[in-house]
């Protein structure tokens, strides 16, 4: 009775998020994203000055004790603008991909599960959307709906939705062939139940990794749209329109563009690293 004597590993010991602590990059990624979220939430309390407060006396100053990141050509405090800009960037950068994921994952699971005409219709539709470069599609949608916050979210959601559809579709096709899916059908579950209960959790790992990567992309997209004047509208700050404002005098006053660019870099880096960390944590096979 060799297997009877075998010890069952205590599940409580396995559930520890060991991977999260084990890896330095993981810690950095998690800290970066957590800091960003905190900054976005607590922005109005952290910002030392009103980000909209103009002063021609204090225009285009380099960093100093009073203005940590310097001031822009209107004399507004760049540090405060970067902090408040985090809110717009993250709100759009998170909401867009999450909406894209909610729609795309369902559509992808349906396509991957049922195949045939369902699959052909959904896949060709997503191919159609993907044949446009993401930014161009965003610009087209933003131009059609008129610039603004909601437009940016809708544009990003539509631009990213086919990516989630494709990923969920191919992952579903793989999982669908697993015997435990047959076993679940044999246990009396219907297709929707199986998709929710067995397919979704099994493809969630790769989707969450993709989600955090596409959040990084969405933050860049939002910056690009704002840069082009189609996202967050001035005078409200966002990293994208700060870079645009700074473009006018990059030599004389590079600070607004430089710090907004650094914020974008950090945000993208943070979400990418977080994605890797989540992948390590979510794969149960790695826990043995």
């Amino acid at each position: 009775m060799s297997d009877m004597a075998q010890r069952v590993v205590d599940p409580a010991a396995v559930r520890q998020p060991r991977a999260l602590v084990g890896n330095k990059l993981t810690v950095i990624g998690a800290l970066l994203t957590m800091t960003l979220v905190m900054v976005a939430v607590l922005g109005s309390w952290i910002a030392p000055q009103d980000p909209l407060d103009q002063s021609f006396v204090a225009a285009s100053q380099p960093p100093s004790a009073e203005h940590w990141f310097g001031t822009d050509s209107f004399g507004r405090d760049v540090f405060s603008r970067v902090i408040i800009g985090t809110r717009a960037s993250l709100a759009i950068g998170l909401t867009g991909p999450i909406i894209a994921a909610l729609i795309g994952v369902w559509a992808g699971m349906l396509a991957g599960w049922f195949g045939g005409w369902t699959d052909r219709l959904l896949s060709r539709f997503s191919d159609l959307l993907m044949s446009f470069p993401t930014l161009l599609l965003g610009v087209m949608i933003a131009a059609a709906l008129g610039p603004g916050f909601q437009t940016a979210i809708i544009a990003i959601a539509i631009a990213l939705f086919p990516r989630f559809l494709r990923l969920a579709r191919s992952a579903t096709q793989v999982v669908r062939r697993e015997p435990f899916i047959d076993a679940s059908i044999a246990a009396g579950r219907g297709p929707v139940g199986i998709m929710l209960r067995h397919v979704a959790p099994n493809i969630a790992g790769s989707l969450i990794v993709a989600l955090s990567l596409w959040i990084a992309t969405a933050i860049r997209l939002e910056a690009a749209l704002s840069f082009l004047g189609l996202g967050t509208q001035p005078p409200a700050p966002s990293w994208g329109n700060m870079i645009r404002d700074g473009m006018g005098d990059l030599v004389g006053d590079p600070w607004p563009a430089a710090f907004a660019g650094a914020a974008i870099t950090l945000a993208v880096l943070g979400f990418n690293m977080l994605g890797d960390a989540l992948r390590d944590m979510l794969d149960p096979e790695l826990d043995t």
Partner: protein
Amino acid sequence: MNALLEVEDLSVHLFTPRGVVRAVDGVSFRLEAGQSLGIVGESGCGKTMTALALMRLLPSPPARIVGGHIRFNGEDIVDATDARLRQLRGSAMAMIYQDPMTTLNPVFSVGEQIAEVVRLHEHATPQAAFARAVEALHQVGIPEPDRCARAYPHQLSGGMRQRAVIAMALVCRPRLLIADEPTTALDVTIQAQILDLMRVLRDESGAAIILITHDLGVVADLVDDVAVMYAGSVVECAPVADLFAAPAHPYTQGLLRAMPSLERKLHRLPTIEGTVPSPAAMPPGCRFHPRCDLARTICRDHRPPLLGMPGRSAACWALTEFELSIAHVTAA
């Protein structure tokens, strides 16, 4: 007596781009409540397709039931709606698959998965369902069922997983249990344990069992009756003792000769000459005739019907009903 399961002239065809393959061709058998039936045959003879058809689990496309009836408790499964099938599956009829490594979902604990089946078919709180899962694990001889229920599949050994799979199949007390090669993927020692377990469960649960296997030793151990399949159809049906004592069909005789024996000292095991015909290119007449020593003209031209009495029959022109009944008497 009313049979629990009555399969009549079941035909399953595979519709492939290169043509129609007759995977199951006119299979009939019956199974009383609490009885056990073994379906044996080599790879590709249609035994798994038959088993899947019983629960309407055939991969479709390409497979489709093209004819026949499957009566479960008098209800025809072939015409059942998807909703009705979902009710039956898991509660009235359950299936054990070959490979326990992959029939459990890696992202849920074993207990959650068994509890899920309970909640699917019975109104139970999550706690009550989980308690039932623990009880089911205990029933299949898992030590510390509490801890096992909280463990993930990859934390268990193959034997433990197969026990968990069996527990999942039995948790709603099905009246029919279909086991598709339940021991093939396991070590020999674990195989023996699982067979012991299935024997105990058969007696305790009163479920009828259909055991699909290519291992005659497993059949001898566990079932009351045996159906031998060859190239998509049943060639012989017999109580297990009769089959081993007096196989009627030349194919069955060949299979039994090819089994190693402790009594006979042989340098080489005899084999059945030739190979199973490709399902796409079936020989006319009796499908076994190209490999059969007793083949006559009639075998080439006409398919032999399954003749004999209920429970003891064979499909071979070389046999008459008279010979079959003699075989039955001698074995008894």
